[in-house]
């Protein structure tokens, strides 16, 4: 209702969301809106995944080393120690290359970190996500992540100057890969470019209550055409969210705003009843207009 008073921060938020909206056309010809995952959530997911990965690997490593020490104390157990060594080497390889691959090949197309933040991998062209695509996007992680991070750690310890110009050149080169998602509008990293994928939001939404099942109050509150013409779809949806949040203070404020606008005398005590009645009347009004092909986006149109 009072969209004009929305803070600039909120406006900025909606704009950044707008720029992330994409459309995917299903084989049924239905346009499904997709929202690309924000860079923040992708970094967050990555950090979580790395924590899981290194924590898990660390635990298994510890177990292997403990077993190895135990075996060493016994005599003539060198073949068992060697088997442990093999397991150790293969584990390091698999954790490095297999973790992301394994989870993204699953039915949810997401690593645990991604799943926690409600994002997943999807094919950019609307086709199915293939094993080859997941493979390709994860093979590039080496130069995008592991190599730059190793290099940065090395530089932090050894100092940049020890490498001179070559060190800086390598630094810039590696940063290009690390910062690749910042420089394209689809927020793709190099692996996404190669595999034809992107990362999208995949939230699980719960179905909220139907609004008009509340007791019918169209007899207590009668709204005329002139009163319903004031608002459009945007205001209706703001009203819906106010009703769903069920905050007495906000409902009171909104009721006063509406009454001022339509020239009614506002009385306290029955905010929810009034707003529900107004919501149903306004929605009925706007939806009947829709059926005749007339839509009203907001109060200004």
């Amino acid at each position, binding site marked *: 209702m009072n969209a004009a008073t929305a803070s600039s921060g909120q406006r900025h938020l909606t704009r950044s969301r707008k720029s992330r909206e994409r459309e995917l056309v299903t084989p049924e010809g*239905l346009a499904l809106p997709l929202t690309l995952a924000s860079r923040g959530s992708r970094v967050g997911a990555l950090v979580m995944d790395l924590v899981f990965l290194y924590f898990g690997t660390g635990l298994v490593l510890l177990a292997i080393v403990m077993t190895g020490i135990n075996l060493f104390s016994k005599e003539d157990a060198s073949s068992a120690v060697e088997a442990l060594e093999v397991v150790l080497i293969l584990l390091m390889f698999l954790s490095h290359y297999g973790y992301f691959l394994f989870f993204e090949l699953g039915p949810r197309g997401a690593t645990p970190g991604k799943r926690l933040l409600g994002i997943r991998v999807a094919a950019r062209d609307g086709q199915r996500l293939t094993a080859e695509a997941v*493979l*390709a996007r994860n093979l590039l992680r080496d130069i995008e992540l592991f190599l730059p991070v190793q290099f940065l750690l090395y530089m932090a310890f050894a100092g940049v100057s020890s490498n001179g110009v070559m060190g800086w050149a390598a630094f810039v080169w590696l940063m290009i890969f690390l910062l690749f998602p910042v420089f394209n509008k689809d927020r793709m990293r190099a692996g996404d470019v190669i595999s034809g994928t992107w990362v999208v939001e995949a939230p699980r939404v719960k179905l909220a209550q139907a*609004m008009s099942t509340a007791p019918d109050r169209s007899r207590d509150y009668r709204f005329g055409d002139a009163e319903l013409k004031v608002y459009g779809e945007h205001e209706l949806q703001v009203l819906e969210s106010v009703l769903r949040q069920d905050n007495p203070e906000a409902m009171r404020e909104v009721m006063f705003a509406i009454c001022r606008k339509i020239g009614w005398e506002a009385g306290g005590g029955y905010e929810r009843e009034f707003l529900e009645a107004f919501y149903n009347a306004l*929605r009925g009004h706007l939806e009947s207009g829709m059926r005749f092909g007339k839509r009203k986006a907001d109060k200004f149109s």
Partner: protein
Amino acid sequence: MALNLFTRKTIEPIPAIEAASLRSDRFRLEREGDWRRLDEIVTALEKGRARRIADADLMELPVLYRKTASSLSVARETSLDAATLAYLEALVRRAWFQVYGPRVGLAGWARRFFGGGWSAAVRDLWLDICVALFVMVAGTVVGWLLVAQDDNWYYALVGGMDGGRGPSASREQLLETLEPVANAQGLAAFAAYLFSNNAGVCILAFAMGFAFGVPTLLLLVQNMALLGAMLYVFDQQGLLWPLSAWLSVHGTTELFAIMLSGAAGLHIGRAMVFPGQRTVLANAAAAGRRSAQVMAGCVVMLVIAGLLEGFVRQLVGTPETRATIGGVMLVFWLAYFILMPRRRDADEGIAR
């Protein structure tokens, strides 16, 4: 609110359709049962519990998906209930990911991969393989020539870790490095180490292809110059044949894999520089998926190379046997890549 804690888990009954005063809400209540059913099936699929879903439900999944998708398109034109629209959009999206999700499991994928998908992908990369092979041969020659000019190049190329195979080593010392070991102690760990090291290098060579393929070429030249330098040193003592046989046991497989990974890297680099008729992004994606198959194969080859290098080379003695094993492996790979026919459904994964 306290009561809510306990009631939240129970499924709320759908209100009677007549209870709704708005037409669009009645539309919703009529279909809500189907939506909830689809929601349950999709949730189970996402959790990897496909087996627990009743057969009847699974059979009806496509129907429910289509019904819900059509509900969404009707609701978009008739309903202004933002919460319902958001729910439907999320549900249809999730169902879409499951209905059009990958259908083959690991076993099915492996059958398709070894049964023609891999060899077809390798054949698709023929031009890049030619380039990679040329660069590798050139790198070997360069290494040879450099060390032939000045022994110091050997140390610059190989570094300190030459395992006693430097230009200053005598003939006997060089021969000794090619000797088999007496027993198999420690060879398994050695093989595992070789595999993980080589696979890491191969994946790096592939990944660097993203920078238009240039670093991939440099990596190939550098690695092969090392080989050329070593060949020169052994040739000076007249040991070229024993060394070649010693290397060929695993080398034919390992160098083949390195060549393929280099070619795969070049392929994506080339796809981005010369996209042809398609957009850069579309071409890069197609090339990436094709090369990813080749790379998966490279890892398989390197497992075999690691075993050959770790066990067979260390246990088999004479140059003739070693060269025969290496030769057989080379012929096997060539035959497999050239002769294995493309499966009719093998392209599904990378088709547009």
